[in-house]
């Protein structure tokens, strides 16, 4: 398999470059949106220590998104800050699951956020993220190998954190167990979107940018299966993708409102550092 050492080399092959940028947008937008949803929890997490920990994790994830946007900048896609803040919703490639709000209500008025949903969404996502990063360590795009290696070092801490929450809540009171099961059902309805690599997935796999979608899915499902077995849960059918595939630009209206809030400051004064 041919490897590409630099952005210049990747740019020489339009088909390769197209698949590569698609994947980079998927990786960047996933972290970006989930970190944003996480940051809305600030001050609302179950206790002060969790508030500190969760914001650290979100800060890391914003950092990871920035690394991918930088890789895109090197490929001539535009400035990293513009990529995160000035694209329209249909240009975003994040999975729909990660754009969904934390619960009913909003940050300023009566936030009725669901902690079980936050734990399950973050835990399952981080499991998938780690599996993809492991695959990217041997990517045909060398700069992506290095980025993946960097991100992976930090993701292990995130995984430890969410794993602890998941196990504690699932084995806690009947009420907690019930809420966790509800959250799992909710996450399950969209999780296929996280595992999908979209319409360009075949080219990505063929050119060795990342392994094929089926392999990634199998690894994730077998991991989740063992988590479920330990907790006395049963794996039902495969996860689904009810609200469309974000990898192909399909999103819910909640993405647009998230982006509006996120980018308000930036759009008003793009030149100002913040």
């Amino acid at each position, binding site marked *: 398999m041919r490897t590409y050492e630099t952005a210049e080399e990747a740019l020489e092959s339009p088909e390769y470059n197209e698949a590569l940028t698609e994947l980079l947008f998927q990786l960047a937008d996933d972290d970006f949106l989930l970190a944003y949803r996480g940051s809305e929890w600030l001050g609302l997490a179950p206790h002060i220590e969790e508030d500190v920990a969760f914001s650290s*994790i979100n800060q890391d994830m*914003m950092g990871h998104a920035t690394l991918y946007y930088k890789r895109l900048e090197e490929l001539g896609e535009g400035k990293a800050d513009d990529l995160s803040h000035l694209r329209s919703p249909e240009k975003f490639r994040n999975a729909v699951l990660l754009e969904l709000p934390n619960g009913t209500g909003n940050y300023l008025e009566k936030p009725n956020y669901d902690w079980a949903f936050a734990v399950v969404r973050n835990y399952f996502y981080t499991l998938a993220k780690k599996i993809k990063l492991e695959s990217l360590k041997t990517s045909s795009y060398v700069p992506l190998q290095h980025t993946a290696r960097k*991100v*992976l070092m930090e993701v292990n*801490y995130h995984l430890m*954190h969410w794993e602890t929450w998941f196990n504690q809540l699932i084995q806690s009171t009947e009420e907690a167990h019930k809420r966790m099961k509800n959250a799992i059902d909710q996450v399950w309805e969209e999780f296929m979107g996280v595992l999908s690599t979209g319409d360009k997935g075949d080219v990505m796999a063929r050119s060795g940018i990342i392994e094929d979608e089926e392999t990634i899915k199998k690894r994730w499902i077998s991991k989740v299966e063992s988590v479920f077995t330990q907790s006395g849960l049963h794996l039902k059918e495969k996860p689904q993708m009810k609200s469309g595939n974000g990898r192909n630009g399909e999103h819910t209206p909640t993405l647009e409102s998230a982006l509006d809030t996120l980018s308000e400051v930036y759009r008003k004064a793009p030149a100002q550092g913040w």
Partner: protein
Amino acid sequence: MITSDRLKETVYRELKKVEDPEITSVSILDLGMVDDVIVQEKEAVIQVLPTFSGCPALDLIKKRIEEAALKVGGVETVNVQFVYDPPWTTDRITEEGREQLKQFGIAPPPSDHIDGEPWHVDCPYCGSTYTTMENIFGPTACRSILYCKSCKNPFEAMKPVANL
């Protein structure tokens, strides 16, 4: 005529004075962040390894490095490049850096940590091994919060990161 080796040495000496904005008192050199300094003609290329992705101080660090290197007579332009190969790992922190971290109240990361396993940190104040982990994630992404059961002080420790 000053040789480039000589210039390089002087640049390093200036870099020794540049602090990480998040952990003042430890120089970026002792944190192991500088991978290489290349001096050609009047330009200094400084290759820097970013530490934790969640520490958003890179722009500030870049500015401070530029300012520091420009103090060196003979250097007219500075080019700071952030590189990711090799990756920054906590075992790059020098002995001096580890001592300075302690003085700052942060226990240095263990040098023999096996990834994924719990790590053990001694209290930076009294040296006791009788400590508990309170929170893996401290006030910044790179630090954890621990508690010493001997001297009853909370303290921070830098998380080990290793290349997997």
